[in-house]
């Protein structure tokens, strides 16, 4: 499931306590994702899911929560 993969990446690669990461946990607001973490996450999404995140898609609405990120990925494969 996409949400779990994203959650695992954030937990393992960005040194976050995975137990707090619900699908709706505010990643940006609570500083789970800093700008470097965001950059790494985008790189992960592109390599892991074979998508290209367009410049115009780099907006807070797409990265606010795990649900938002998963929705972005699903929209790209639809």
């Amino acid at each position, binding site marked *: 499931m996409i949400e779990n993969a994203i959650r695992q990446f954030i937990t393992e*690669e*960005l*040194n976050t306590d995975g137990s707090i990461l619900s699908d709706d946990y505010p990643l*940006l607001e609570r500083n789970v*994702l*800093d*700008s*470097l*973490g*965001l*950059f*790494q996450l*985008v*790189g992960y999404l592109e*390599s892991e899911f074979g998508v290209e995140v367009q*410049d*115009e898609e*780099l*907006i*807070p609405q797409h*990265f606010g929560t795990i649900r938002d990120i998963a929705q972005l990925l699903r929209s790209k494969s639809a």
Partner: protein
Amino acid sequence: MKDLQPDDRFPATREEDGVRIEIGFVGEPSGRLLSCVSTPSGDTRAGVVMCPPLHADFAKNYRNEVLLGWALSQAGFAVIRFHYRGQGHSDGDAEDITLDSLRADVRTAVEHLVARTGVSRIAFFGCRLGAFIASTAAALYEGAPLALWEPVVDPSSYLREALRARLIGDIKDDVAQRESAQELALGLKRSGHVDIHGYPIHNKLIESLQGRTLAEELGDGWRPVMFLHMGRGEKMRAEHRTVTDGLTAAGLPVDVHHVSADVGWWFRGAAQAREQVDQLAAEAVATTTNWMGTKYTEIGASR
């Protein structure tokens, strides 16, 4: 190698662990470069000119280059590190940096290293855009070994990456009036620069790099090349693979090395653990020093 005599132009010197370091300003009075020359206490194998990166990469990689310069000198190399005009402590303005000015600065650094130490054989090192610059310089020195860290092989992708870093930073900063990549690129032309996390990229530099690639700048002259790429996985980025394959096909001996680290060149962040930073430095420095050593196995000889 010459015995280095004290020189009033370089009042800041230090000797430690078999390495002598000399810091001062070199070049024409109209545009001097801050330079740091480190030399071994014994005989010298060759000289290494270290071409630093620009913008955020300059600060990010600075300590690594200090460590590399030190390690190379301990291994028997005379090394010059320097700041380009318009960067760091050197004279000049960042907005005047162009490919031609960068090349001229490398020439100044080479001339100073040779004049000061008497080395007759020169190798080059560069990181990121510094690797691009080192490649254009090395092309003028037949057979000069070239060590590259995460080279920028296409300056247009460097700009795109920078703009992308700005967009990502704007997400985090929740910037109210976010500009699109297209607007940022237009702004670069209109105002002459674009700010990327506090580092201005100037249009003059971008225009001077337009249409150029590392492979073309390096040319087809034979030389040994070390290509060190950094990333979470061992797989090289496609643009790097294209360059290394091309150099190999042209008959150049290319040694590819990988350091496992997610550098995030335009960023500073808590996501990068201290131990990861130290490990990256140690691996990259050791790999490069060992590789350079294989190119100059004896005093006065080269492989």
